[in-house]
């Protein structure tokens, strides 16, 4: 796929926020092959979100190298990075919606910014909303959604452009167990479709529950370093 076959490839990558704050990383070696499924675990403040940000280019490494879809993130221009992000879907814990737009328009936002006509992809939207179980909430505003609905809407937005990679940061952090499992099922379905999935979570029960659904590897991050680079689930 991308050069060496890894869609995301970190070599000795590190990041320091300066001032010695938490969340800094050093010497991270991590390669995600196309179609793989990885969980990223670790205690709060271990640097999970920082590592994910390196993986979708919101942060650039202060040491080492990060290749996103075969491109060195430090060498990417702002526009180049935007184009890479169109191929990496991201689900945040706080979802990050445009609150003045209804759910359907939030979900189609990646199409719009990529220069595609959302109206021409109405079928795609309909199928996606049905897949995440939000058909009846398409015209609602983000503030009117429950936590689980917001996460599913964020997942729909992350995949509407048919990205190569889906990265989720604590997607089940604000939802109950039943909804967590439903989200896990959706992520597993995406993986079966060939998407590379990286999910940060501190919920070990969720990881165990995912065992029958996906063939995943578990990465453990502690004190800014990867301690188990890819233990089988």
């Amino acid at each position, binding site marked *: 796929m991308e050069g060496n076959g890894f869609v995301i490839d970190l070599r000795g990558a590190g990041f320091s926020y300066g001032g010695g704050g938490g969340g800094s990383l050093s010497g991270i070696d991590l390669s995600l092959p196309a179609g793989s499924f990885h969980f990223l675990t670790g205690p709060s403040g271990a640097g999970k979100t920082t590592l994910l940000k390196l993986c979708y280019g919101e942060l650039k490494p202060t040491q080492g190298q990060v290749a996103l879809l075969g491109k060195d993130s430090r060498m990417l221009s702002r526009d180049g990075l935007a*184009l890479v*992000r169109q191929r990496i879907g991201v689900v945040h814990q706080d979802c990050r919606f445009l*609150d*003045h737009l209804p759910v359907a*328009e939030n979900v189609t*936002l*990646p199409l719009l*910014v990529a220069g595609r006509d959302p109206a021409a992809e109405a079928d795609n939207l309909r199928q996606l909303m049905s897949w995440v179980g939000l058909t009846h909430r398409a015209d609602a505003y983000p503030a009117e959604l429950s936590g689980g609905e917001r996460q599913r809407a964020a997942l729909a937005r992350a995949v509407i452009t048919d990205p190569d990679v889906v990265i989720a940061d604590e997607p089940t952090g604000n939802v109950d167990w039943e909804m967590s499992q439903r989200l896990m099922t959706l992520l597993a379905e995406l993986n079966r479709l060939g998407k590379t999935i990286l999910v940060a979570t501190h919920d070990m029960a969720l990881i165990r529950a995912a065992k029958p659904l996906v063939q995943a590897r578990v990465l453990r991050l502690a004190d800014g370093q990867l301690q188990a680079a890819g233990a089988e689930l």
Partner: protein
Amino acid sequence: MNRLRPLLDLLRRKLAELMELALGDRASDRVVPPTGHTVWLTVLSAGAMAFLAVFALALTLATGRLAERWAEDLAQSMTIRLAAPAAEADAQQAAVLAVLAETPGVASARALAPEEQAALLEPWLGPDLPVGRLPLPRLIDLVGDDDLDVDGLRLRLEGEVPGAVLDDHTRWRAPLVEAAGRLRMLGWLALLLIACVTAAMVSLAAKAALAANAEVIRVLRLVGARDFYVARAFTRRITLRALAGAAAGTGIGMVAVTLLPSAEKVGFLTGLSFSGAGWLAPLMIPLFAGLAAFFATRRAALRALARFE
């Protein structure tokens, strides 16, 4: 031609950008939430500046017309003042007219009647003064054309009619024309300042809008929006607001200009309204305001976006 190609390409790109901006698309416009205060700041400042620009433009065009008219009128018009004892006045007046009749370039020449001289003095001395009893010089009004040799005529009059003094109005014509020219220059300067202030205010409004929508920009960047896309969304919104404000300000300004005293009334401060095709000139103000807003907003947006992340 090859040297011009980069310039033509640049112009073509800018034109395409402007067309895209003008046409836009409603879905993209919706990504920027309406922000009340920046919208009103833009509309009001553009409107006020356009209103002032209409007056500055009217002043500029009127002073230009005034300067040209004064220069033309006074360049052609001259006066010969004849100071002679009453007994010799008629003879000297006839001699002057005879000289003028023989001089090439004299279009017309005539002696002012006593009543006309009285009418000229009336604003200063009042209507009841017995002008006829005052020892006034005779005045001969002269209109020349381009062939008239003013210095040659002056020398000939000095030789043939020593009491006659030719006044070609240069002494007071030059400062008037210069004053009108400076007023015109000040008008253009005022227009330039108004354009700069408009751009600065719109730029501030754009920065305020961008700062107020930092989260929106983060979300757009997160889903893969390029800086150009984000900048265009803000630029289009603010440019259209500036255009609307400027159009309203221009309209009100043009109505106000029509209420100014007309040129038919005599006086220095009359005739400041537009005339003829000059009425089309203020219609360019909203266009220029829109262009200033477009470039100011685009620059502010791209600079602000470059600092993101």
